[in-house]
């Protein structure tokens, strides 16, 4: 049992919490991070496909990820002392028929409207970028400034560097309740009876955020859904782009190590067995393999060495919930990243730290306010 004081408490030791802690510690703010599991970055932060994408994103969150790609990702490896394996070699979203072309055209038009360089290219142009793609691919949307990175080293790099700068991290400590003192959020009560106290408290606990926010009367409409992924043995270098498909059969990239990390789905997401831990289903990885082989016949002999699953915290409208909660002074929220929180995480950490230190952000986040959800009529 501990009783501990800091300027800032962050609940959730994923990449959002670790990045925010890093940018705060860098500015000499005393910060404590509380993680319920025994591991740093044990949720979506370690289980995602590594995309650092702007294309396909909602205009409400696009400015944040563009800010991160311009200002933070290019020098992040040096800054946090790990190889983030960041590649900015573009994102291809692949299509095989007229229906796919319509989907991709819609995404491209929406991206162009907000000033993002995304182009439609035909099958031959696609194969100029990645010659290994099968002739079934007839169309793609192409965003040259997108990329990918390694979620494991990036998350743990933020943790390692924040810790070195004096941020305190506790794992295996579950927050049960937020508690106000004289109308302001001040305390965090944990399962072992410890009390942590701070002037500002940020909730970045993925899906678990909902329950925590509920303890001070705030509700964010979100649910969780299971995502599954696999990784191959190391293969000779084939391509550096991030890939997705119009049909959403799979997404992924080849890592620096040579292995291919691909995520995908069986169609039963939302109906998977839930025994409290994210479990892979026996039908999903084979389905991902079938999807991949249609696009990359050469990968049929690549060996799968590992599969895994993870929860994504889905918000009701597909974009995160971010910023101050005016009803509860002292509360900051950063959750519901809906399966695309990794690429945007450095920008979130940077901007949340600014919000905590100065009360404002450089990028307008008002469209991501917790209070935006209204009934349909």
């Amino acid at each position, binding site marked *: 049992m501990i009783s501990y004081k800091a300027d800032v408490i962050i609940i959730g030791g994923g990449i959002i919490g670790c990045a925010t802690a890093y940018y705060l510690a860098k500015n000499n703010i005393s910060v404590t991070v509380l993680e319920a599991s*025994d591991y740093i970055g044990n949720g979506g932060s370690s289980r995602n496909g590594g995309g650092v994408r702007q294309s396909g994103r909602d205009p409400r969150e696009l400015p944040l990820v563009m800010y991160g790609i311009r200002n933070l990702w290019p020098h992040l490896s040096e800054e946090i002392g790990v190889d983030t394996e960041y590649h900015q070699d573009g994102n291809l979203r692949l299509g095989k028929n007229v229906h796919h072309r319509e989907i991709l055209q819609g995404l491209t038009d929406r991206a162009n409207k907000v000033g993002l360089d995304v182009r439609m290219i035909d099958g031959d142009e696609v194969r100029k970028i990645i010659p290994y793609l099968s002739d079934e691919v007839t169309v793609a949307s192409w965003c040259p400034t997108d990329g990918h990175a390694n979620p494991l080293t990036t998350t743990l790099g933020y943790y390692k560097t924040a810790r070195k700068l004096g941020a305190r991290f506790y794992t295996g400590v579950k927050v049960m309740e937020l508690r106000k003192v004289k109308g302001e959020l001040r305390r965090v009560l944990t399962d072992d009876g410890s009390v942590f106290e701070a002037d500002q408290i940020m909730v970045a606990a993925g899906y678990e955020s909902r329950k925590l926010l509920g303890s001070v009367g705030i509700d964010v409409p979100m649910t969780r859904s299971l995502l599954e992924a696999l990784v191959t043995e190391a293969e000779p270098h084939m391509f550096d782009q991030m890939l997705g498909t119009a049909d959403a059969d799979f997404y992924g990239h080849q890592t620096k190590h040579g292995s291919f990390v691909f995520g995908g789905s069986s169609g039963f997401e939302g109906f998977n067995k839930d025994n409290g831990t994210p479990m892979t289903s026996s039908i999903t990885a084979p389905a991902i393999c079938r999807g991949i*082989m249609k696009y990359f016949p050469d990968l049929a002999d690549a060996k799968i060495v590992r599969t895994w699953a993870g929860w994504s915290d889905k918000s009701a409208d597909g974009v995160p919930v971010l910023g101050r909660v005016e009803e509860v002074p002292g509360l900051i929220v950063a959750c519901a990243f809906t399966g695309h929180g990794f690429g945007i995480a450095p920008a979130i950490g940077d901007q949340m730290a600014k919000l905590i230190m100065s009360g404002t952000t450089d990028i307008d986040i008002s469209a991501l306010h917790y209070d935006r959800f209204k009934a349909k009529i």
Partner: protein
Amino acid sequence: MNTLSDRSRDIGEFVSQPGDEMIICRCEEITKGEIRRAVHEGMFTMTEIRRYLRAGMGLCQGQTCSKLVKGIVARELKVSPADLEPATSRVPMRPIEMKVFANENEDEDE
């Protein structure tokens, strides 16, 4: 089930030792010194060591080295190896070609 762990607790400074250049994870060629240093950088669990260094993430998925890695991490943390939770074992048990894995829904006699 989870245990409170203060990641800032004092485990002493990292001091290089003879034998640090020894390769422990053969698949990914990770040395003893790299593992010891990672513990001092805050990687206190087998799961974090795996994700940070790739030790046990190669072709054999740690079936050869995980016991050795555990012993090294435990010694740096000054705890018993039995106190360290092993990293999660994941499907498949042996590396399997995509074209074979993909056949899961086909009848055997087809």
